[in-house]
């Protein structure tokens, strides 16, 4: 929205438009955003941004509440083994400079961060990359589990030309994803910067085809909301969002990293064969099956066919067995059993004294919970262990750690339970 407003302002400006594009981002930030108003002095006279962390936290909590309201006590089945295709639109609209330095540079940067985060949270899943250029869709990389190869292929050639065709991309992705085993969740994430799509046929038919193959298509738009993208996402059950600036784009992308809820009728319980390879001994020599080269030492041996692979998680090239290690599974596990949101503690200073006695330090980082003056600052508390945490620890616990330190440090007499409910 602000991008559009900027552009409209540029059209009505009396100065030449070409120059306005060349003037740096910093001047724009002065004129439009007035960045000096976002600063204020704190007690010691140093400048710091206006305390918007409370806003950030409120937003975050709202998000969480929505998610857990949807769960409502029941366990949601989520697709842990995801086969995701990222479709990036490299048509001429991607060369627009409303995102600095250009849309495709920003897209590439954030997709790289997304890929890493994705494999972090979903070690059992695979990603493939598709680009749209000149109205034709090309496969940049096939489905694979190694982040490096994807990132290399993406950063290889960044150029934007021609029209964009949504139908061609969907057809290509549909073809690829049809070969995926049925226990895997098929997803497509489209980063669309164009405003129209030039298709060779009827795109509605393609959308119906995708819907039938249980392909979940989500779109992140970079220019404006388009009806066809909204329709696609509604039909297939995906999410449609439009990014207004760079930070927002990053947030939207990262929203797709955790696994989405599985559609009930499609998620049939299955037993999947997996291998847990042993690490090869130091000094052992073998021809590695992924590089076709002699490697010494560090590597893993497939338990079924004894072929050597370099890194995990991966699929054995010889026998096709999914090879993972136990930490990978553990990391996927916490999506199924999310940690319950912490309760907010009201910050009234006229609370009874017992409260004030307890909440001196955050249990997680041991920093003082008292805010300005001697009043109690904003803090949260865990329902189970009743410890207090500051806002930053709250975010960290829920987004990265997925375990409450207070609950973990409770000594259980007999066995240590793995899960917290």
């Amino acid at each position, binding site marked *: 929205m602000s991008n559009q407003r900027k552009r409209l302002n540029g059209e009505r400006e009396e100065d030449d*438009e070409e120059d306005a594009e060349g003037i740096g981002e910093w001047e724009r930030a002065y004129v439009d955003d007035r960045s000096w108003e976002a600063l204020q002095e704190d007690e010691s006279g140093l400048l710091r941004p206006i305390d918007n962390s409370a806003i950030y936290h409120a937003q975050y909590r709202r998000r969480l509440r929505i998610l857990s309201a949807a769960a409502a006590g029941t366990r949601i089945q989520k697709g842990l083994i995801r086969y995701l295709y990222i479709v990036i639109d490299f048509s001429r609209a991607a060369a627009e400079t409303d995102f600095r330095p250009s849309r495709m540079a920003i897209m590439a940067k954030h997709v790289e961060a997304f890929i890493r985060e994705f494999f972090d949270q979903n070690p059992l899943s695979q990603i493939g990359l598709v680009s749209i250029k000149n109205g034709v869709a090309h496969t940049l990389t096939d489905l694979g589990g190694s982040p490096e190869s994807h990132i290399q292929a993406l950063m290889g050639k960044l150029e934007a030309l021609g029209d964009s065709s949504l139908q061609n991309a969907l057809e290509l992705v549909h073809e690829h994803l049809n070969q995926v085993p049925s226990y895997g969740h098929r997803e497509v994430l489209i980063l669309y910067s164009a405003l129209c*799509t030039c*298709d060779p046929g009827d795109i509605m038919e393609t959308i119906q085809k995708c819907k039938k193959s249980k392909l979940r298509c989500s779109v992140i738009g970079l*220019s404006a909301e*388009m009806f066809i*993208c909204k329709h696609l996402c509604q039909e297939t059950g995906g999410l449609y969002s439009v990014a207004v600036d760079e930070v927002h784009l990053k947030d939207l992308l990262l929203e797709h990293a955790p696994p989405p809820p599985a559609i009930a009728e499609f998620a049939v319980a299955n037993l999947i064969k997996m291998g847990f390879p042993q690490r090869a001994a130091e000094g052992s020599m073998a021809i590695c099956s992924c590089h076709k080269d002699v490697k010494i030492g560090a590597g893993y041996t497939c338990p079924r066919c004894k072929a050597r692979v370099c890194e995990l998680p991966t699929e054995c090239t010889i026998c096709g067995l999914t090879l993972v290690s136990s930490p990978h599974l553990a990391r996927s596990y916490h999506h199924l059993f999310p940690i319950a949101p912490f309760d907010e503690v009201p910050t009234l200073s006229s609370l009874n004294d017992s409260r004030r006695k307890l909440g001196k330090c955050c249990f997680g980082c041991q920093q003082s919970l008292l805010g300005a003056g001697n009043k109690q600052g904003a803090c949260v508390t865990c329902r189970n262990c009743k410890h207090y945490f500051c806002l930053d620890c709250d975010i960290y616990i829920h987004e990265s750690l997925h375990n409450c330190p207070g609950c973990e440090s409770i000594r259980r007499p007999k066995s240590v339970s793995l899960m917290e409910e």
Partner: protein
Amino acid sequence: MIFKIEDVTVCFPYDYIYPEQFEYMVELKRALDAKGHCLLEMPTGTGKTIALLSLITSYRLSRTDFPIKLVYCTRTVPQMEKTLAELKLLHDYQVRHLGDQAKILSIGLSSRKNLCVNPKVLAAAEENRDSVDAACRKRTASWVRASENPNVQLYMVKFANVIVCSYQYLLDPKVAGTISKELQNESVVVFDEAHNIDNVCIDALSVTVRRFTLQGANRNLNKLRQEFYRFKASDAGRLQAEYNRLVQGLALRGDVSGTDQWLANPALPQDILEEAVPGNIRRAEHFVHVLRWLLQYLEARLDAENVEKESTVSFVSSLTSRAGIEQKTLKFCYDRLRSLMLTLEITEADEFLPIQRVCDFATLVGTYARGFSVITEPYEERMPHVSDPILQLSCHDASLAIKPVFDRFQSVVITSGTLSPIDLYPRLLSFNPVVSRSFKMSMTRDCICPMVLTRGSDQLPVSTKFDMRSDPGVVRNYGKLLLEMVSIVPDGVVCFFISYSYMESIIATWNETGILHETRQQKLVFLESQDAVETTSALDNYRRACDCGRGAVFFSVARGKVAEGIDFDRHYGRLVVMFGVPFQYTLSKGK
């Protein structure tokens, strides 16, 4: 949902209601309680139709001792169909929640092409609408169906609770007689999308006569003479009976059966004198002579060199001095023609339209001394070299046609999305509303960004003033504006121009300078034309282009077919560009 407004329980078929809909219903109820007329303005898209329908039907249910009928008038057939669909939804909801007492009968009245069920008549619908009506009449004229039931439509009007029809059924005196007779005074009449109602009223009482009308009228007269002689030879008794009737001064209306209403008088009912037809036109052959003299005079008038404008009184006096036809004779032209055609049993109404029009003209000229003027134009404005003379009887006073409606019915509701300035209407239509209110649309966020541009990007002022229209700088600036907008706005863009000629010339210039070509790279281009079929197909393709993501631009004309009554909602109308301000065409003599 069901809620109460003061003492009326209102059944609203949706779960959510806008605050302005609720206020609208409250004001409407007040007007109904006061048994007066009202003017309500509420923006399009806020659910006016359903608010109206649900309040009035609920009002009727709550006042069981005074059953009121609802007459809902719309302007176009698609609007009528939409209203009927909403009514059906409402009806289902009401029956579900209130039981059988909520059952209502509602009928839609339209030109027979749209709603007639007789298959043979529908087959004739490929031709023009008038011939359909004629074909229908062939079947329903009383002497053809002498033994069958009277016209089903009129029968149903008596029993229906809700009638949906077009404006003509209430405003045009030629057609209004059929429906108004069957309606009681306690009916509520609603005129929806009534911002142009003054135009409709004026058109209902205006007549245009051209050269080919007069030629057609001459042919009709010859045919009438032939029929007359044929009848004289075979069945002279009928003609004599007619003469006797006229001598005795029996009111023609009362004698003719109610189904033969297709030859209705163009003047308003209260202006038709209850008198005997004057002596010089009682005999059929005399009447035909009089008509011929009238036609000759009109032909002479059409040969005038200059534009002339005069009042009806002076027109009639010059007619009297030149052709010897008096004003009283003119007044009865229509009735006499009707009686003659009935006597001669003529059913091909479409053939006799020209002579009917001439008689309309004569009757109106003779009846009204004020509020009309007769204008002769030797050629049309745009083509000064082509001689296409036109004689117009145009009505100035919009209140004439609508006065009977206001006098007759208890509550008349005039509602529209754009009734500004709202205090103009009471003066224009000369009535006193008890409620006159304007409502605003409530929106949860800023979703409209209106802008006015007076300069192009190169700082030249842009305008569609007549002298600036062909200025290449202006054309280029408009083109640049369109191009830039088209490259940032997704899905559908609608552009309005002030007239067809302007639109065609500016698009031709854009085509030459390559702007149209570049626009086509971003979006497909569709144009409205004066042909209805072409425009409908263009609109259809425009919607398909917007749906499948290709994006499209639609060029149309303000006050054209598309501008009035086509919804460009959601992604079909992401941007609307109005090139210029559409002023009235003040150089037209009629206006």
